[in-house]
């Protein structure tokens, strides 16, 4: 098994494998996202309270979910890289960070747009939005630390420590922010994401999450290939052609 693992983690093999995998993620991602968009925007019933405005949920909730998922993926990849000294894992963490930050930003932007008709303002210090904002700061700090080293190996290992410290802190931050908002305002704001959502509204949500997952698979395959090329630019296997 270890032999297989080392073979997979070797840059030429990973580069080729990711190249073949990428379209298998990319086309299904496009299909599911289009299906979920059509289902969510056209077929799903309108909310009795919020009318059509709730439909931004189909972008907001999956991207918020992805933003946390990718942070965990990134931290696991960083830990694998740090413990077993696998460079490919570090490269995967580096490739995942900007995607995660983009999803976090998307969640913040859609949450803000959703807030305008619902709350009447562009920004409310709501628990979910605030912890998304702090998550964005964590991503930005991670990327800033990574880019401030000249030596890529040191950048890998230092940012891996930060990602692990961050992932331990994410639940603490999340619950402290939740505690903070419930003390300052009674839980009426969370009515918008009420858990008792109709089943007919849920199907497109799950499909959209699946689509975003597939998109993440596609994006990280592409980005990881780029990362491998950048790191191995002087290696002989690249000069020999594939």
């Amino acid at each position, binding site marked *: 098994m270890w032999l297989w693992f080392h073979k997979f983690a070797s840059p030429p093999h990973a580069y080729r494998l990711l190249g073949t995998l990428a379209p298998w993620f990319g086309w299904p991602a496009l299909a599911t996202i289009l299906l979920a968009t059509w289902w969510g925007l056209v077929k799903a019933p309108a909310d009795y309270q919020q009318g059509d405005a709730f439909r931004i949920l189909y972008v907001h909730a999956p991207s918020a979910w992805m933003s946390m998922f990718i942070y965990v993926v990134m931290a696991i990849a960083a830990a694998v890289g*740090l413990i077993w000294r696998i460079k490919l894992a570090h490269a995967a963490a580096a490739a995942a960070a900007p995607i995660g930050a983009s999803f976090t930003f998307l969640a913040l932007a859609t949450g803000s747009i959703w807030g305008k008709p619902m709350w009447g303002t562009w920004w409310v210090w709501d628990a979910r939005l605030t912890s998304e904002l*702090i998550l964005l*700061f*964590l991503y*930005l*700090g991670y990327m*800033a*630390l990574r880019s*401030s*080293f000249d*030596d890529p*190996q*040191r950048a890998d*290992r*230092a940012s891996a*420590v*930060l990602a*692990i*410290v*961050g992932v*331990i*802190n994410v639940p*603490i*931050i999340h619950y*402290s*922010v939740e*505690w*903070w908002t419930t*003390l300052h305002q009674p839980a009426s704001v969370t009515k918008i994401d009420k858990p008792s959502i109709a089943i007919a509204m849920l199907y497109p949500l799950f499909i959209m999450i699946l689509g975003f997952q597939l998109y993440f698979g596609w994006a990280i395959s592409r980005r990881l290939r780029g990362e491998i090329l950048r790191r191995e630019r002087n290696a002989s296997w690249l000069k020999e052609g594939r």
Partner: protein
Amino acid sequence: MRRAATTAAANLVFRRDLTLAWRRWDEVAQPLIFYVVVTTLFPLATTPDLSQLRVISGGVVWVAALLASLLALESLFRSDVEDGTMEQWVLSGQPLGWLLLAKVASHWVLTGLPLVIMSPVVGTALGLPFDAWGALVASLLLGTATLSILGGIGAALTVGVRRGSVLLSLLVLPLAMPLLIFGSRAVGMAMDGESPAGPLQLLAAIFFLTLSLGPLAMSAAIRISVEN
């Protein structure tokens, strides 16, 4: 035997840093002055009315204390890494986490503790009632100690980086936000006449979590920084 040697080494590190700081006490005073200056900015920027300032006083004291201790943290390991002391520590065979924890502890005694002692004075100037002094001091004791360890991790990661101070704040401030939430909430509850025990206990829980895991992260980060 080995444990005794470790304690002795940690003790030596602690006393060495205190002695060094005593010889350059003006550097030690700078974060404290910064703290007082920042808290002065808030009445100037908002209103001199004490009854209005009182509402935000707990938060202002907490934010200023966070910024002041971060400012002091940036140079925590720098001189030791530059003159090779840190390499000797890594090679010494003593558990690096203990030595770094001793260093952070002495740093906290020099910067965190003065901030905590000064905070009732600063708070009073912002209209903080006498009843909230206890909560303010207790929350800042736990909060600055936790922040020293968190900042120690950040300082260990950024020790070899140019313009590390901005980066350090960028890394550590998001991690310190729970401290700010619980700390200023404890002060607020004490001002309203409620018992601040809940947030203080949460702060203590975060402190012990950081105390147990922080040295591991710090020593890993220092090893990465010293390695090449």
